[in-house]
């Protein structure tokens, strides 16, 4: 469930990144790469889980599924927080610097 949640987040971010091309002001590429990286890592985790549990891997308990989904949502939230921090620090449009110091980054 964590893998599926992260893959869904990665797909949504990639679509949003593609829609905003050629501009990259919102740094959506960074966010989508973060989620894709995590998705690949959880995919490896899933392979090892399948090797260990066999077919039982595809039939988790409802409580386990809910817990994993809750974890997936938390992971996506953390990814969004990291992206927001990067966006505010890099400030590609210079609006934050302008608002705080009254001058643009250019």
């Amino acid at each position, binding site marked *: 469930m964590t893998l599926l949640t992260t893959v869904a987040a990665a797909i949504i971010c990639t679509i949003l990144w593609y829609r905003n091309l050629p501009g990259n002001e919102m740094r959506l590429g*960074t966010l989508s*790469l973060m989620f894709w990286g995590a998705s690949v890592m959880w995919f490896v985790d899933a392979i090892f889980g399948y090797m260990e549990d066999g077919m039982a891997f595809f039939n988790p308990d409802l409580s386990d599924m809910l817990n994993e989904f809750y974890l997936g949502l938390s992971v996506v939230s953390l990814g969004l927080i990291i992206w927001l921090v990067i966006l505010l620090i890099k400030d590609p449009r210079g609006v934050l610097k302008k608002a705080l110091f009254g001058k643009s980054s250019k």
Partner: protein
Amino acid sequence: MACFLVPTAEAVVTTVMTKVIESKEKTKLPEEKAENEISVDASVKIPLSRKMKWLNNMLWGGSALLAFEHVWHGEVVPYFPFLTAAGDPASAAEMLHEMATAGVLMAVLVTAVWGCMVVTADYLAKKASQAGKVEEK
């Protein structure tokens, strides 16, 4: 247990490599300008430092989110030895085995995905460059 440490270690190495490559590219560019050697192909070509940043984002982002999952499951704790499995030798051996199998496979697979991205991006850049040349003619 601690599989995320392998991609994190790779991320440290690739970040240092990116910084070195970036500084080399910065020093190389003015030389090329002076020699007037910049061709249409060079302007279309994606710099290696930019490609390396894609890998860095995947490795750092993935490792950070995976580390959070380990905290969630109580495998990483905020006090010494930070990894619960490092407490006793049997669990430590299991942890090292997991790092050597799952951790290494994670790092390899992320790098392989990045490799595919780089090959595709280079192909698209080359295609765009060729299309530009045809239009010029």
